[in-house]
């Protein structure tokens, strides 16, 4: 990848990487740090990464960086999950569908959220998702299945049935 291709890639992929990171862990400063480090990593390895693989390299690097941050913030993260879980279990609270989906997503593990984003928004195949997240194809399919099932269960708890 040349410097020109890198610059073009940054313009095309930075927002996608940010959305992907925010889906995995909705903390804007941490996500911007992760994307920034991923971009720096891509720049450092631009000679080895072909342009066709640039985006998946970027997403993969951002994911790795974010997971390292998450490990550092493990205690905070556990607290946040408790808060979210408590809110999700409140049957009387009503949200619009978009907010309900976001809340349901927050109950899923990061890897499942990452897979949902890559599958639904980026349109990646199972193999591409596995390559990006360093998972086998079958694990990707299992996690994707569980992610959708769990999200639907959470939406039902929030009062959203099939017709809503």
């Amino acid at each position, binding site marked *: 990848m040349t410097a020109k291709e890198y610059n073009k890639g940054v313009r095309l992929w930075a*927002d996608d*990487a940010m959305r992907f990171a925010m889906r995995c862990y909705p903390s804007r400063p941490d996500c911007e740090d992760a994307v*920034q480090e991923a971009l*720096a990593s891509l720049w450092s390895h631009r000679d080895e990464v072909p342009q066709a693989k640039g985006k998946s390299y970027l997403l993969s690097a951002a994911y790795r960086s974010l997971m390292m941050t998450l490990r550092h913030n493990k205690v905070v993260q556990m607290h946040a999950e408790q808060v979210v879980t408590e809110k999700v279990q409140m049957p009387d609270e009503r949200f619009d569908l978009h907010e309900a989906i976001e809340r349901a997503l927050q109950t899923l593990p990061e890897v499942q959220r990452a897979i949902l984003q890559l599958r*639904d928004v980026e349109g990646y195949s199972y193999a591409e998702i596995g390559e990006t997240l360093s998972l086998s194809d079958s694990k990707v399919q*299992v996690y994707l299945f569980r992610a*959708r099932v769990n999200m639907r269960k959470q939406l039902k708890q929030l009062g959203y049935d099939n017709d809503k």
Partner: protein
Amino acid sequence: MTTINDTNYEVFLLQYAEGQLSDIERAEVEAWLADHPEAAEELALYSEAPRLECDESVRYTRLLPLAPQGRRPQFTSHLSPFLRWSAAAAILVAFMLPAFRMGTMGQLEPQEPQLVAATTTASDLSTPNIPGTPKKTIKPIDTIRTIDIIETIVPEEPLLIAQEENTLPLLPQEEPSVVPTAIPSESLIVYVPAPDTIYTNTLIVYDNSRPRLRDIAAEWVEETPVAKFIRHNLSPRKAVMIASR
């Protein structure tokens, strides 16, 4: 070919829901589901789950607009050679005249007391000039620590590029064609003052969340004479490349 069972049923159900199984495999899955109602319920939940949509409101905001590639900011192109030489001569005279006057005053009026100038400082007043004693020397500008200048220029808040685009030294009327480039986290971006460019200030962009960069910036600028960059007349892109090393 493996068959569906209690440990691998999720993969089969996903492929079943996505229409990726052959007719034989579908029949096999349906037969298995008849004996496993919990799994059938999971399959229904999977099918009902909404698909995620792209949230266009989420954007990456740390992009740095730079001058277009292959173009250097040239202020001098707007001046004719005559005007340029005139300006150079005027600057030369402006610097030489005080030195000449001080030299002549020292020769012709050595015993006269010095008048207190409007710019005399308090410390000058506390030690009155005695005729015949050496005059106080004014500290040359080039000995001012560069870091002092930097402290006055760098704002307290980190330069979030997208939010403060107007503070960046973009070329006039070239904003639509700027090339965004990411700031690597370990970079110091230095805009170099050069008399023949539009840049008038030294500007360091660093990430406030990494205090180490501030120390590096201070050390680097202190050790590196600004004159070097004036002579090299670096473009922002080159400065970025150097800072990224």
